């Protein structure tokens, strides 16, 4: 009932989504101190005096972080500001030792950019469509430490390894409509920052975190009150959190309630957003210019780099090819389908394989892509290996693809080959094939013999087939594949088995015809003849359903493949 209700009235509402993304920068040291910027170190081990806000220490801006921020801004077509400034944002929290975060609120590093991306989630969208979102600003800022709350011991523990880690915050305009679009934007952003080498993009490590602002309103009316979902930690989480938040807001408004401007958190397990208690009160961050850092100046005009002034044109020259350019190139050069291109570019590891393998020999691009996206990904998933951790060499994958093309192995065999290779990457392919007997039988006589064997050994199924149940054909194929451990070229097998079965069928027809001849004497044979020979199709009801039967010139011995003539 509820579901029905909401579906009916949903059409009258429009949802508006805007994102704020924090990305940790890949620098050696932190934004304002010399301690290492690394993930997963021993607790409180990468902490300089400044990171712990020891009195008297001062921030020193890390040049590399500025470069990485500018690279990102350039890749997103932003306007880089010649002068930007740092501000202090105050709030008390145990993992914020100074009591303020140094950020760029008033004069950020860059403004006015745009991100273009394709929205395509297999299973949700039939085909990809294009979207874009404007970027309001990109700012440099410090990350905070991490708090761990032990509710049983009533203790909070603080780890400052992350305190002072460089971040860029990207503030997007509310240009999106739903969670899938937001997820697609985040995915594209991850690809871009990975391409640039600016950020690892590992959302599971918190290297890229998403806040989403969500509101709904009726078309033609002003935007509704928004809520903010904080710190969403995965691409699918973005889609799920926003979808659930839209539904929640909708349910409230439908019942005449109103939306409270609040901060919520995404509970990925319960699949719902929940209000965050400690941020209930509206905070006044009491922004103030950071007095210990002079304004940050960059050179927008020349390629000349100076110790204190970074050249933006020089950085522009170092920009790599971006994911969208890669997609266009792949579609034009190899005529790949847009959806496969999107999937391929989404996985940098697979894209690298593709680019390296396609260069050697001539390989069918579509077959290669299919192999990578299906067989390789399946094998990796089965063996619980992350795609980016795949240790296979280009040459190994290339060889497997070639063997498939030459029908030395089939997809089944290729899958088994991959399973072994993933465990022991140094073993020779040919050895595995020999050991595991993966080599495909393409000898027709051998295949025919196996087919006959299966027909002989399964009289019941064959009888069903004869009686018109052609579905059992697949069962027979299955038995054959299983008996031979998938060593036969199944495309040949399938053809051969079909032929043989037809012969069996024809033999039956022949026998039947003889019987019919007897019937004909009673005046019914003529009808059958016309049917069988004339239309090439047996009429339903006569011999089961739509079995294709051809002219009956001669009858071969179905058990002897070399005998007999034409069907």
């Amino acid at each position, binding site marked *: 009932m509820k579901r029905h209700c909401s579906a009916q009235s949903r059409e009258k509402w429009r949802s508006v989504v805007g994102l704020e993304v924090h990305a940790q920068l890949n620098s050696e040291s932190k934004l304002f101190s010399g301690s290492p910027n690394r993930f997963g170190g021993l607790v409180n081990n990468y902490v300089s005096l400044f990171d712990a806000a020891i*009195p008297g220490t*001062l921030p020193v801006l890390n040049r590399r972080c500025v470069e990485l921020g500018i690279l990102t801004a350039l890749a997103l077509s932003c306007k880089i500001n010649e002068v930007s400034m740092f501000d202090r944002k105050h709030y008390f929290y*145990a993992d914020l*030792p100074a009591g303020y975060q140094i950020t760029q609120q008033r004069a950020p590093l860059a403004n006015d950019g745009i991100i273009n991306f394709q929205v395509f989630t297999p299973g949700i969208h039939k085909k990809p469509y294009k979207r874009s979102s404007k970027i309001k600003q990109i700012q440099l800022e410090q990350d905070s430490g991490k708090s761990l709350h032990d509710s049983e011991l009533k203790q909070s523990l603080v780890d400052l390894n992350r305190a002072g880690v460089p971040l860029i915050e990207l503030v997007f305009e509310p240009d999106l409509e739903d969670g899938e679009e937001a997820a697609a934007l985040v995915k594209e952003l991850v690809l871009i920052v990975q391409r640039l080498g600016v950020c690892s993009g590992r959302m599971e490590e918190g290297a890229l975190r998403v806040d989403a602002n969500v509101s709904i309103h009726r078309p033609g009316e002003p935007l509704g009150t928004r809520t903010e979902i904080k710190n969403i930690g995965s691409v699918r989480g973005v889609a799920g959190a926003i979808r659930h938040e839209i539904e929640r807001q909708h349910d409230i408004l439908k019942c005449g309630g109103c939306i409270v401007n609040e901060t919520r958190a995404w509970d990925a397990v319960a699949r719902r957003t929940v209000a965050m208690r400690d941020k209930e009160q509206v905070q006044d961050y009491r*922004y103030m210019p950071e007095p210990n850092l002079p304004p940050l100046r960059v050179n927008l005009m020349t390629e000349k780099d100076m110790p204190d002034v970074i050249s933006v044109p020089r950085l522009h020259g170092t920009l790599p090819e971006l994911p969208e350019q890669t997609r266009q190139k792949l579609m034009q050069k190899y005529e790949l389908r847009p959806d496969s291109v999107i999937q391929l570019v989404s996985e940098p590891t697979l894209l690298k394989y593709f680019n390296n393998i396609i260069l050697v020999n001539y390989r069918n691009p579509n077959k290669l892509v299919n192999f990578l996206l299906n067989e390789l990904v399946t094998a990796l998933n089965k063996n619980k290996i992350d795609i980016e951790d795949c240790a296979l060499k280009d040459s190994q994958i290339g060889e497997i693809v070639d063997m498939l093309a030459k029908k030395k192995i089939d997809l089944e065999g290729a899958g088994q080959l991959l399973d072994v290779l993933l465990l022991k990457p140094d073993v020779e392919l040919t050895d595995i094939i020999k050991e595991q007997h993966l080599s495909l039988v393409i000898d027709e006589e051998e295949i025919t013999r196996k087919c006959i064997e299966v027909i002989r050994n399964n009289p019941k199924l064959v009888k069903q087939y004869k009686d018109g149940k052609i579905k059992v054909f697949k069962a027979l194929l299955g038995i054959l594949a299983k008996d031979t451990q998938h060593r036969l070229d199944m495309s040949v097998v399938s053809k051969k088995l079909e032929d043989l079965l037809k012969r069996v069928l024809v033999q039956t027809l022949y026998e039947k015809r003889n019987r019919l001849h007897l019937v004909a004497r009673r005046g019914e044979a003529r009808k059958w003849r016309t049917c069988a020979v004339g239309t090439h199709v047996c009429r339903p009801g006569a011999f089961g359903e739509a079995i294709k039967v051809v002219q009956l010139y001669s009858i071969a011995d179905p058990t002897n493949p070399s005998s007999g003539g034409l069907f």
Partner: protein
Amino acid sequence: MASPTATTCKEAVNIVQHDDSFMRFLQEMYQKELNEQAVSGNIESEKHLDFEKKTKPLNGVPIALKDNFCTKDITTTCASKMLENFVPTYDATVYRKLREAGACLIGKSNLDEFAMGSGTVDSIYGPTKNPWGWESEHDWRISGGSSGGSAVSVTVGSSVAAIGSDTGGSTRNPAALCGIVGLKPTYGLVSRYGLIPLVNSMDVPGILTRNVDDATEILNAIAGPDDLDSTTIKKQFNKIKLNEDFSLKNVKVGIPKEYYCDGMSEEIVTTWKYIANLLESEGFGQICKHALTSMSIAVYSILNQCEVASNMARYDGLEYGLRTDENYSTEELYASSRSQGFNNVVRWRIFAGNYFLLSRNYDKYFMKALKLRRLIADDFKKFF
């Protein structure tokens, strides 16, 4: 400059130990570690002289350091309960440079809590009394502040030079009250790294000595760019040399009209007039006008309190400093540590600063104060 012999240090330590009855420019609790440091510095200086036959510019010169400069392994308290037990693990750049120049630290000197004050009376260690005009325990004069301890240490001769900090007069004021030389160098000339801040945008390490030559020597030792302080002037610092016979011909001394104000004592006004006449008649004194003078206190107060509110936010008792036993919640812990750790002056400034920084007040107070500060600075630029 006082001769840089090792005995200076010993003498200084003696004065510190025996002449502490009427003033408290040093904090006794870590007198011992300081003496050890002074003596070992003394030995170092001696070795340097005897074996290497080289002299460093400040070899063996005893110095005092205001207790808001961080000193490795020596308690640095800011005269506050909050930092009573704070032992830094690093040296302020100023101290590092002084040590490298051969000076030895004989004491950390008293101040108003977190350098907020101008009398050196708001210290958890009690007031530092002025050695001049001292009559009895109950009849004494203030030493000025907030670097009163540094000023007194130089005045009584326990150190040849002392480092203070100057935000709105904290070095010059006690120097004047104690009759010695006090210098606030240009902002950016001397590194603030390791100076526990009051107002980052105006703090400057100050120099207190008995004469101008000594002040020059100290400035030469501590000035110059520092990678650890981004606000230092990047240009290389060229050491200053004062000629024996210098002329005042190219010197312009401004005598701001507005600085003559109500409430000044008769004695001061007389002296002021005498000096002003002298300068004018010699041709380098010039009456100047600073129309915004009356606003400068308000501007200073707002900027000071805003930065104080921000700088004091780090004292939450978690990483260092006073932490009370409060364990109801983190917020309660903050509140009780901060209210017990800071005195009234500090707390008052924190409240006021946070009020000025509220987003609804920012333009009304902080922004306006910044603009006025620019105008006041322009006034000075125009004159000189």
